[in-house]
């Protein structure tokens, strides 16, 4: 017998004696990061970046497959005893020697996970982790001229790229309210001193908001540059319009941290068929949040309508897509993205 066959036999035997649990239920108690376990990570350190942003150093479990600069990772943290999943861009370089990864989180007002991570995360805490994913990455053949257009916490995926690859000609236009709000300010100025980056730093409290239409005044050759943009919805919408108007939409790559919500309608009573839970929902809250708040195990991913990780069969009633206002009615086989859909009257999900 080969060693793998032998190992799987031994595992079967173990399952026989741990039933109805699995061997991993016991192993997880003292070795949550081991190979073969569900992917988890351990928080090793928390470094303040600005008054409301912090970098979290995470030691990923053995199953971690690495990331590409610019990608994000989903983490599940227990906040007040409740497991919540959010996406965060990886800010560490891919070749970090100690195998740790970092994410950098900005606490937003009333944000459950972001505030918890920035203000209460403690070294030693085990968190849930998912493999890195995302399309907001540099192509294999490095572009000759690059523009990074960022604002606020949107700097995070770009910092991952800056730390990872040396590019010939990089310009960055970054906005933040004030000097002390600029995340990674020292790192950026080190790169400038190093001559590996040209930086345009805007403090919107004094300089006013960046007008994307007047970008040429800051970066005259902006249109020749392959551009990666990440920041608030307004900035990204303006950038997409501007690049499209100039006929170079394919040269702009954007990363959004949240979906653009256009309409909210009337809610209704939502039934989760499998668990038998029924709750009232308004017409603005994503069904994903509604389910989680009711203790239903909802599948999820990006939580902003791009990955389809949350698709769930709609068994009855109707839901509204919060991005378009479009109504979807239940039919056999119809799946809805719960992270960007809200109840449009009474409805039932198979969960």
């Amino acid at each position: 017998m080969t060693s793998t066959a032998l190992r799987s036999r031994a595992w079967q035997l173990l399952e026989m004696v741990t039933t109805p649990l699995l061997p991993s239920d016991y192993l997880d108690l003292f070795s949550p990061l081991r190979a073969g376990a569900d992917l988890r990570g351990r928080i090793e350190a928390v470094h303040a970046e600005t008054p409301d942003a912090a970098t979290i150093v995470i030691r990923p479990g053995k199953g971690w497959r690495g990331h590409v600069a610019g990608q994000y990772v989903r983490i599940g943290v227990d906040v007040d005893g409740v497991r919540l999943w959010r996406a965060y861009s990886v800010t560490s370089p891919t070749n970090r020697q100690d195998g740790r990864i970092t994410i950098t989180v900005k606490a937003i007002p009333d944000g459950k996970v972001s505030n918890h991570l920035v203000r209460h995360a403690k070294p030693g805490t085990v968190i849930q982790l998912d493999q890195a994913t995302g399309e907001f990455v540099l192509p294999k053949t490095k572009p000759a001229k690059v523009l990074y257009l960022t604002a606020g916490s949107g700097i995070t995926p770009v910092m991952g790229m800056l730390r990872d690859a040396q590019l010939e000609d990089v310009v960055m236009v970054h906005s933040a309210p004030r000097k002390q709000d600029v995340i990674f300010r020292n790192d950026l100025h080190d790169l400038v001193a190093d001559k590996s980056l040209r930086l345009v730093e805007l403090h919107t409290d004094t300089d006013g908001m960046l007008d994307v239409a007047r970008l040429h005044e800051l970066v005259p050759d902006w249109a020749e540059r392959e551009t990666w943009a990440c920041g608030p919805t307004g900035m990204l919408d303006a950038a997409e319009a501007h690049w499209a108007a100039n006929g170079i939409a394919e040269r702009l790559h954007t990363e959004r941290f949240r979906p653009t919500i256009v309409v909210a309608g009337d809610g209704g009573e939502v039934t989760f068929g499998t668990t038998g839970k029924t709750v009232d929902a308004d017409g603005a809250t994503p069904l994903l949040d509604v389910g989680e708040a009711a203790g239903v195990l909802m599948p999820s991913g990006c939580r902003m309508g791009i990955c389809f990780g949350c698709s769930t069969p709609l068994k009855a009633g109707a839901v509204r897509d919060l991005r378009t206002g479009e109504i979807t009615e239940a039919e056999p086989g119809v799946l809805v993205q719960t992270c960007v859909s809200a109840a449009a009257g009474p409805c039932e999900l198979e969960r």
Partner: protein
Amino acid sequence: MPAAAGAVEIDLWEQRMTTTERLTECDIDDFGRELDRIRDEVTAARGENDARYIRRVIAVQRGLEAGGRALLFVSVLPPAWLVGTAALATAKILENMEIGHNVLHGQWDWMCDPKIHSTTWEWDFATPAKAWQHSHNFVHHTYTNVLGKDRDIGYSALRIHPEQPWHPVYLAQPFYNVALAMFFEWGITIYDVELERAWRGEKSWREALTELRGVLGKAGRQVIKDYVAFPLLSGPSFLTTLLANLTANTIRNVWTHTIIFCGHFPDGTVVFTEDQLDGESRGEWYLRQLAGSANIDGGALFHLMTGNLSHQIEHHLFPDLPSNRYAEIAPRVRALCERFGLPYATGPLLQQTASVWKRVLRLALPGQGGHQAAQ
């Protein structure tokens, strides 16, 4: 008149009420609102400490089980047998009661942890979690103590309330209740397949047999683990380990049988007729749960070992609140009952058990056992 029949039941129960006036509809609504308030407060307060509590109980249980089983590898040595069996029996009780029963009720669903969730949990009991969830969470907790609806009344095998019509087979119930206690796990397994409903033609034999096959898969794995795999792994301790596992399972069976029977069948608990369910208000639902349940007095460790079913009243009022919170709300529920002049059945374990057994013996014989039936 159907509405009156339910009212007679409440009347019977209210004879034991401490105040002379009957509750008005308004009082019942107030009572319901007060209980809803307790529920909302606990729901809002659930948090990190509760999560830590259940994870700790789970870790302790797994440690006890692993430690006990490890000791039993050398169970030919009497001290190892004794300590190992005690640890395993304790682990099995914790697993079934404070963990399994309560997780399967969805008490910990709010944590959104897929490892501790009513839809994913499987317990160390012959009957599969899903089958039990239907018969227990749905049938029993919805139709608590409604004759003809709540199959948990005497587990369809015992005459435990005088309102159940007598049959000669009940003459043997003192004996088969002992057997049920010892083999409780298997009693529940058969019970969850609802064979008696197939017998009565309320469901097809084919359906019952399909369910039975599903149950047998789970039950088979349980049997292999305790009576084949672990004894074999113990080598020279084969027989003693087999005996230890049998003992641990039996202790667990007798304990759970005792606690569960004390929760619904001592004197002071009441059964209802089906028409009680018609248009039942929230307050009336609470009243029925209260009237159908009884608590057991004891200390913190005792409550833990009963899976907090010693707070059966609180559990039936709020089946999906985390069990570690029952002790804290029990005094408030009791004070509320006092305020509304409602009986709150509770007593020490011995007294409640004696009361249950008195009923089992008395009602084995025909007749009303000295108390008037509903109709």
